[in-house]
């Protein structure tokens, strides 16, 4: 089966990190659409297609910063894993450090992996490619719409 570009959702409040990820994404020459939101609450609104996000596509992968205002990355992760509609979407956590407790908690709460910022171009492309393959596990269609 062929994999097709999945849509990505980047949840990141830090402007500098955002720019670095944008650069990595551009340089990796990926076909994927990348959507960006600035905090945890907005992330959940986007994923649940609430308010101004009512026409949003459900992403095939979420890149989630841990330290954010309003709702932390952990809170978003927990909410996603409790929601049957959002649970299938894989989440990769973005961390500033190799703080072991953050990493342990990420995995325990249901994240697939974590990446240390800043992300290299190669790393970025690799993450995206692997999760596109993941979606081919059962189907060509990334997320069940309901």
């Amino acid at each position, binding site marked *: 089966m062929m994999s097709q570009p999945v849509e990505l959702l980047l949840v990141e409040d830090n402007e500098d990190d955002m720019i670095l990820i944008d650069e990595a994404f551009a340089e990796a020459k990926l076909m994927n659409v990348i959507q960006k939101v600035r905090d945890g609450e907005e992330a959940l609104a986007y994923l649940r297609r609430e308010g101004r996000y009512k026409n949003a596509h459900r992403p095939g992968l979420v890149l989630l910063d841990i330290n954010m205002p309003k709702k932390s990355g952990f809170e978003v992760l927990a909410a996603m894993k409790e929601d049957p509609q959002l*649970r*299938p979407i*894989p989440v*990769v956590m973005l961390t500033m450090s190799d703080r072991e407790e953050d990493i342990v908690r990420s*995995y325990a709460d*249901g*994240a*697939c*992996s974590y990446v240390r910022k800043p992300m290299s171009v190669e*790393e970025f492309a*690799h*993450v995206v490619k*692997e*999760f596109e*393959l*993941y979606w081919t*596990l*059962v*189907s*060509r*269609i990334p997320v*069940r719409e309901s």
Partner: protein
Amino acid sequence: MHVLLIEDNEDDACLIREALALGREVGVILTWADRLMTGMRYLTEDHIDAVVLDLSLPDSQGQATVEKVRRHRPTIPIVVLTGLDDEAQAVQAVREGAQDYLVKNRLDGETLLRALRYAVERARVENELRHSNEQLRALTGHLETAREEERTRIARELHDELGQKLTGFKMDVFWLTKRLAHSEGVQDTGPLLAKTRVMAALIDETIAGLRTLISELRPAILDHLGLMAALEWQAEEFQQRTGIVCRFVTPLQEVTVNSTGATALFRIVQEALTNVVRHARASKVVIRLDEEGKELRLAVEDDGQGITEAAATGRSSFGIVGLRERVALLKGRMTLSGNPGKGTTLTAYVPLSKEAA
């Protein structure tokens, strides 16, 4: 017991009335009608337990008389009255659903009473049996739905949980491999690198195994793209797995069947293909899907040794009984025919539903 006698000949009616006189003491009540139409009215208005029916009435003759009563009250026990010269017709009536027959000239009260009692009892047992069969069929349908839901749930769980974790795991191992390859501080990275490569390969294998398992449990293609795409995929997958050439042939662009129907038809094809592998010794299978009038026709034809009549109609083959049951649940019918040395064809006819899959 309230007995309705439908008999146009007054002498015969009197004969029956006299014969049943001794039944009055044990609570037999007799109502007499001399026309079928009148009898039908009694059947509608009164609580009748059994019908004694003459086959030759002014307003109805022969088997049609039994049919009309049965159409009106499908479960009512019927005892047919017949003359000496048309016993054959009475036997036919029993085949058509009457409980018993009595020859008028040989009639006596005791025989008639016993025939009526047995008729009522037999009809009661038949109805119970029919009811219990209906319940079993409903239960089978319910179990089938439950099983399908469970399979879908497990497939989803495997995908969402294990699939995600393995993908993450694979990424982590990849990261580790990269780091080791470029590390300068660690001495002799060779064995470590070898280990991580083995790990990565093992994860790939596990993911491949998981993929097979998930699609066996519940092909997502059936839910996402419908029956036609699923059958196409199944034919390809079957050919790859077994080496038996498999084609899916259809003139249809889309198929009008709801999702329960699509699942059932898909499982029928899978079951039929399993039978081909196990028994047919075939080199080629064709799956055909077509619409014929108001029915959907699904056929699985192979070029193998051909199923024997005994095997096709046997009660002991759970595979075939299961297939018939699946088709019956869709209110359809199934034929299975074998031609020695030329192959076997299974055909299911299922009423079309309006809702598309």
